């Protein structure tokens, strides 16, 4: 979170003081961006600062959840580009790690849902591996129905709970 804030601050500063030139969100800094004091007005073109694309709110990488129909664990077509974007990012950033957290709605037994959440997280893991991520970068966990985002007994609520969260 701290890193995200710093990066956003940097991006804003650059946008304000340098030019309208969009910041290229490609190659990321191998190390955390250094904390910089407010830069003195620079006559020269701004130094190239690379922003971690994970922090770009307009990137697909800003999406960190996949959603599922009832009792389904396969990644849905609508969410595949998201998972593929994370796979590409992980393959390009071997130092980064993710934790995949599978969740379910309450319409099963707690134990069955623990299994289903595991299967959802594993489905995302397989797609990340196919996209070039390494197994050592990925941890999976299932919360089953134990950590609902929403607790009403209706589909509007349930569909929010049927999800895998991708946490860096």
């Amino acid at each position, binding site marked *: 979170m701290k890193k995200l804030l710093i990066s956003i601050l940097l991006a804003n500063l650059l946008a304000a003081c340098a030019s309208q030139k969009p910041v290229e969100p490609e190659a990321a800094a191998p190390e955390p961006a250094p904390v910089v004091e407010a830069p003195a007005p620079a006559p020269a073109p701004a130094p190239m600062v690379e922003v971690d694309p994970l922090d770009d709110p307009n990137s697909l990488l800003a999406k960190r959840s996949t959603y599922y129909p009832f*009792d389904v664990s396969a990644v849905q077509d609508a969410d595949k580009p998201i998972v593929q974007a994370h796979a590409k990012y992980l393959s390009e950033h071997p130092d980064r790690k993710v934790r995949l957290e599978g969740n379910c709605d309450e*319409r*099963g*037994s*707690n*134990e*069955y849902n*623990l*299994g*289903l959440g*595991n*299967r959802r997280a*594993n489905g995302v893991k397989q797609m990340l591996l196919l996209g070039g991520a390494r197994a050592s970068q990925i*941890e*999976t*966990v*299932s*919360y*089953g129905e*134990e*950590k609902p985002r929403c607790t009403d*007994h209706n589909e509007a609520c349930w569909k929010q709970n049927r999800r895998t969260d991708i946490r860096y």
Partner: protein
Amino acid sequence: MLRVIKNIVGAVILLHVSTASAELSIEIIGAGENQIPIAIVPFGGEGKLALTIKEVVVSDLLRSGLFRMIDTEGLSPRDPADVSYPDWQARGAEALAIGSVAVQPNGRIEARFRLLDVVKQTELAGQAVSASGSQVRAVGHRIADLIYEKLTGDKGVFSTRIAYVNREGQHFRLVVADSDGYNEQTVLSQNQPIMSPAWSPDGSHLAYVSFETGHAVVYIQSLYTNQRKLLAGYSGTNSAPAWSPDGKQLAIVMTRDGSSQIYLIRPDGSDIRRITFSGEIDTEPNFSPDGQYLLFISDRGGSPQIYRMPAKGGSAERMTFGEGANFSPRHTPDGKGFVFTHRVSGKFYIALQDFQTGQMELLTEGGWEKKPSFAPNGKLIMFASEARERGILATVSSDGRVKQRMFTRSGDAREPVWGP
């Protein structure tokens, strides 16, 4: 304190039991086919106790749905010689319990009671029960057990205990209580989920699932010393502990080889052996009373259904068919069938199925009814339900006639399991 409302329409009785220091409230709906009319005379000397033995005995017997209380107003025999049988016959009593209690110099209480047959004018049973001064409930439960056994022929379960999980927001407590919900003790309290408590056959330990390390792991905890140890904490999930009847091993579910599969493990964590190989979700194992078989659920056929396999491993046989999905199977104490959660058309029911006939019988009206478990005598089934937007504990008699709902003080009661 005790209010009985008789429904005008018929045999439906709604009973509400509560006390001033209520930890919970209990509602009873329905009645057994033949209720035994019994008079429980106030125990001599019980006025000195924090709560009376009579009130514990009466509420135990009423909760079973098998008894009807006869008014004792104006009659207070303490000894069989004082009993005027014609008076009790006139009031319609068939059985009569009398007794007295004394607080001894060391603070212990000693209760003596006799159960009399009013029709035959004979003594059916007599017993002295001694306990520490804080255990009036335990004394009452013991007496209620003896009355229940003498008059119904089945063992009483009023002295047994239950375990469940109480959830309040993000806070979880693993609770052990008397079977009536009173006398609750917190075994574990934390801000991470707790699931699937399972009693060791001797009632000395609970196995359960905890998320305190960030993922599901299985612990075994002693209820005497409160000491616990990690049974299984492998990567992925470790869950669904079930004890074998001899207590020498458990079946658990792990995902360390991919999907949820069933493994056997010794209580010290050694000798792990995988026994299902479906690659699908296999979970919720439950040993048969003879230890020879496991019931479990699997979605290998497309939807979650109940299967049975030899406990030492082998091929599985599907037990449930038809519309809907099925979860959380548990053998009946006599091993002839199983109780489970049945989901159909968006509702969850408690259902019973016989191995021989394969017939399924619904015991409840449906709603959010999950995770049934039998009382040791096989006459009552406890399950998780919901009422007034709260998770509650509920029981239903195995013939479906008598139901009760127990509202805990606060939060949602989940994952109940009846202990020895």
